[in-house]
């Protein structure tokens, strides 16, 4: 997947985790937690979803990379480059 496809995957996971949030105005450079109500359990859900869908293993000490959309996409791009887009 390319970075744009990865962004879409993360966005879809967020939509499932927080169905009441409007994500159309999401600022990719600002931490998710400053823009929506996300707690540590929600980040765990993102990790579990990524593992389930793409078998990507994210160690606990690297959860920090998921803090903004930009940093999440940067972190996931090399790890998901050979995965195929769900679309």
């Amino acid at each position, binding site marked *: 997947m390319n970075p744009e496809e990865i962004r879409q995957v993360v966005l879809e996971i967020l939509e499932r*985790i927080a169905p009441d949030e409007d994500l159309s105005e999401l600022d990719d450079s600002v931490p998710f937690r400053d823009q929506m109500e996300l*707690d540590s*359990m929600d980040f*765990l*859900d993102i*990790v*579990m979803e990524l*593992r*389930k869908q*793409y*078998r*990507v*293993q994210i160690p606990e000490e690297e959860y920090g990379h998921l803090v903004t959309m930009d940093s999440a996409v940067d972190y996931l791009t090399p*790890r*998901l480059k*050979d*995965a195929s887009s769900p679309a």
Partner: protein
Amino acid sequence: MPKDFLKNARDSYDVVVIGSGLAGMTSANILARAGYSVLLLEHHYQLGGMATWFKRQNGHIFDISLHGFPAGMIKSCRKYWTREIADSIVPLRGVRFENPQFSLETTFTREDFTRILIEEFGIAPETVQRFFDTARSMNFFDDQQKTTRELFEEFFPGRDDVVRLLMEPITYANGSTLEDPALTYGIVFSNFMQKGVYTFQGGTDLLVRQMREELERNGVDLRIRCLVEQIEISPDRRVTGVVVNGRRIGCRAVMSNANLKSTIFRMAGEEHFDAKFLEEARAIRLNNSSCQVYLAMKPGMGFDFCGDLLFHSEHRGFDIDAMLSRNISSRTFSFYYPETRPGSDRWLVVSSTNASYDDWASLSEEEYKRSKEELCRSTISCLEQYIPNLRDMLDHVEASTPRTFEHYTRHWQGASFGTKFEGLAVSKALPEQVSGLFHAGSVGIIMSGWLGAVNYGVIVANDVDKLLSPAAAGV
């Protein structure tokens, strides 16, 4: 021939979950949804662990621990269970305190506690704000030396009335004391006393039935009356199976929702762990147990609203020894009105008190029976202050003690709130000792209560999934 509760069970599963408390059921659900084969084993004849209920003559249904849990339960049930379950979670209307120092009612929200602390207790608004912010910013890797007592002393020196207001509900919910680390208080307080307190409309029986149906939809093999005797571990310290009701069943991982100490010392066995780990495991302190008194009114007879939860005490100041003593001076009443189970015509009250196992374990059968009767009698006298015509309406009264909790949950010493803080580190370190052996349940205070148990079940299910999922393909 006795019934085979494992009839048609397979010879092996990916995961065996021991115990069907909220942590065990949630783990089982997450792992089954992730595609693993899961066997859930419960020794009792019904699921739920401490999230349980029982039925008595005239169709009375008593809930053990339904009132109440934090708002976060709605989100967790929606994510890890079903929309249907989340949609039945409703706020309680009012929480009351009655003691020699104050008498008040609160909605259990940050706004309301702020108002009460400023208006009724005369605390400076900045102090209240700072206290809430401090509690909210606490993390579980923070300084563990500071005690809850010291935290209160810092913000509200000499104010045992404020301590009582802020502490009594937490002690009721998880058995913690002023000597527990301040950070455990901060984390639980921020979850619990910010956005109100909630309950499940329809009762614990409906909740557990809906959970069971969801587990079955996801393919979990559920078995009641199945007592795990042994967790089978190979010489190279890997989980290979369990022995349950005398039968061996193979598995790649065990998720134990049994008491942490029972998991290590009774089911796994000391020989599979490092000496240092065993030392830490032995040193884990259990939280206290409880006594409860269950009172049902005659069908159709009831009382006016007098709060959903009522923290009653005749003792001055917050004193954990007084709370644990058999010479009871503090009781928490949970009032269950007909709307708990829409369509019902029943009013019920459950009185809870914290209790020490040792006070009850050593009694002779005769003394035990008498002590239970005395507990019922003193509870009724106390409750009459709030429900004057109580005696005319009573249809059924009975008591449970730490011995009852031990019998039904098999927890060491009937612990009704899991372990103290140090239990969390041991629980988390278990898979480093034995590959494939996991534990989730009430540990470390912050992982206790209904929400703590559900969320810890998810956290550990994630660790199990990490172990079992095949290596990343093509990376």
